[in-house]
């Protein structure tokens, strides 16, 4: 039985329980994620991090949340009040919705009912996630616009431009997964990875997805929308109290969300790593959830690691990278994957495939060498002579000014 067939037999109350579990898990994961991030980044900077509230500081983010909720809730006079209130709600709800199609476990028994921990399995599950992520952008752009203030507006614009452009690269990186698995349903994609993870088979796609998911979630080094030094707080500058907490929640749930999607699409989802398949039947199938969360936690650690290591990118470089590197590379890779797929489906001999691969490698090398040559030429070309300015310049010490 496929996941879709199992899920079709779910009674309504099971679906409700799953929804509640997803919500609870996301909120708890957010609290843990904030704590883990602060602790890990602190360790990377030779600090202990929050260690006062609760054992190892575990309750720090909970107490921060309570503090945030109890703070005064300000709405600026210049704000568009209705949209100002709706924006964080859009952000916070959409990020949860993406989890509906993520399969967290294999077959398990929940209250005596055989099911899988996945709320629903729609044939275009991954497209649904992308669509929901796009709706989430509304939260950001509306928050920036409705604040009636300059910095939030700039932050919101940056943020939405960033999310939209990296969504293109993200969507393109997923195309090869669709081509290989022959499905857009998350559970089918997981099932198709029983032999090889797509992170190995479709390594370039995986790399592009990994980069674009950092851009998509507005995280360092792509956290231009929240560049404290340039934009105060970005789109949420004017937000306080619970509304700010909602944005905070949305950010972290988004991180967990894209990590969960990456796990599902590239790391074999809830399946155990190769060689540990026997663990999948432990605890009546619930053990698969542990594998799932270990993989998600691995992605989260990479998020934190990036933040602890890399400086923030400049906005134009960031956009250039997205549009001029990631997207063309994605397109080229899709071309290659599609051709290989068609070749193998038509039963072309091994030599045919090898010849094609050889041609691809040759093209890549040629382009690489050409790029290097251009770069070298640029480097060696003499620096253009700058003429003297025709306006008055202040005199340098010990030097007569030319224009006095």
């Amino acid at each position: 039985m496929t996941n879709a067939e199992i899920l079709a037999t779910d009674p309504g109350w099971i679906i409700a329980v799953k929804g509640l579990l997803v919500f609870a898990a996301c909120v708890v994961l957010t609290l843990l994620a904030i704590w883990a991030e602060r602790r890990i980044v602190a360790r990377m900077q030779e600090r202990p991090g929050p260690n006062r509230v609760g054992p190892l500081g575990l309750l720090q983010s909970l107490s921060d949340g309570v503090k945030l909720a109890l703070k005064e809730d300000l709405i600026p006079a210049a704000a568009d009040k209705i949209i100002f209130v709706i924006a964080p709600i859009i952000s916070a709800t959409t990020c949860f919705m993406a989890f509906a199609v993520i399969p967290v476990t294999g077959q398990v028994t929940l209250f005596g009912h055989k099911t899988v921990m996945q709320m629903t399995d729609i044939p275009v599950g991954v497209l649904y996630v992308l669509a929901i992520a796009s709706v989430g952008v509304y939260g950001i752009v509306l928050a920036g616009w409705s604040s009636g203030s300059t910095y939030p507006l700039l932050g919101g614009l940056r943020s939405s431009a960033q999310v939209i452009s990296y969504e293109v690269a993200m969507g393109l990186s997923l195309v090869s997964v669709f081509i290989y698995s022959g499905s857009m349903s998350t559970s089918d994609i997981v099932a198709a990875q029983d032999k090889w993870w797509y992170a190995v088979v479709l390594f370039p796609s995986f790399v592009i997805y990994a980069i674009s998911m950092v851009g998509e979630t507005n995280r360092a080094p792509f956290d231009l929308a929240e560049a404290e030094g340039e934009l105060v707080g970005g789109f949420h500058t004017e937000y306080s109290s619970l509304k700010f907490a909602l944005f905070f929640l949305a950010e972290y749930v988004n991180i967990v969300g894209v990590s969960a999607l990456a796990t599902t699409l590239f790391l074999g989802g809830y399946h155990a790593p190769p060689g540990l398949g026997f663990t999948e039947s432990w605890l009546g199938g619930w053990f698969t959830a542990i594998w799932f969360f270990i993989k998600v936690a691995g992605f989260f650690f990479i998020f934190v690691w990036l933040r602890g290591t890399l400086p923030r990118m400049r906005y134009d470089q960031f956009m250039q990278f997205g549009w001029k590197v990631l997207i063309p590379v994605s397109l080229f890779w899709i071309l290659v994957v599609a051709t290989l797929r068609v070749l193998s489906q038509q039963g072309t001999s091994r030599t045919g495939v090898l010849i094609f691969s050889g041609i691809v490698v040759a093209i890549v090398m040629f382009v690489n060498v050409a790029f290097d040559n251009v770069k070298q030429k640029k480097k060696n070309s003499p620096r253009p002579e700058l003429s003297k300015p025709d306006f008055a310049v202040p005199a340098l010490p010990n030097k007569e000014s030319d224009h006095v």
Partner: protein
Amino acid sequence: MSEQIEPRASKDVDVNNVEFVPVVSEGPASLFAQLKGFWLTFRTMFKKTLTVEYPEVKAPTQERFHGRHQLNRHPDGLEKCIGCELCAWACPADAIYVEGADNTDENRMSPGERYGKVYQINYLRCVFCGLCIEACPTRALTMTNEYELADDSRSNLIFEKEDLLAPLRSGMLMPPHPMYPEADHHTYYRGEVPEAHPSQEVKK
């Protein structure tokens, strides 16, 4: 000396003929060089943290750290402060307030003529520069290493004389009491008074 202030000129560098060196941006280094950064942060995670967990662990201050002030005593317990107000005059932050008064035979707080009757240091103003300590002619005022001087009210941070006075150590008697037998203030300042004499005890 010329009338005009000349800009300071370096003898080593001829400013007018500095060689033109273009700033070359090499761009991103190799992938390996970039990964080294990741290795650095990863490795740092397993290092010992540098944080001093303050309220539990108190790192000792430097030996001559400028902390809370202290009004010292002579070995027999009489106060060293003579109420001269030089500390108050030296203070750049106007944090010290002193009122002196005359010593009498019945009420002797310090050897000599005068003693500090009121002595206040306002720690909301004090900048811990130590000029008061330099100004003090009798070494009555010194600084301790105590730095925990936080409070939640302004009035608590104006330290009175009794907050600043050094504690009575062995051999000291609580003033007021008469001077050491056959000693005058010169004897005291030369440090020739070892400790309180039984005759100094005031009968109540």
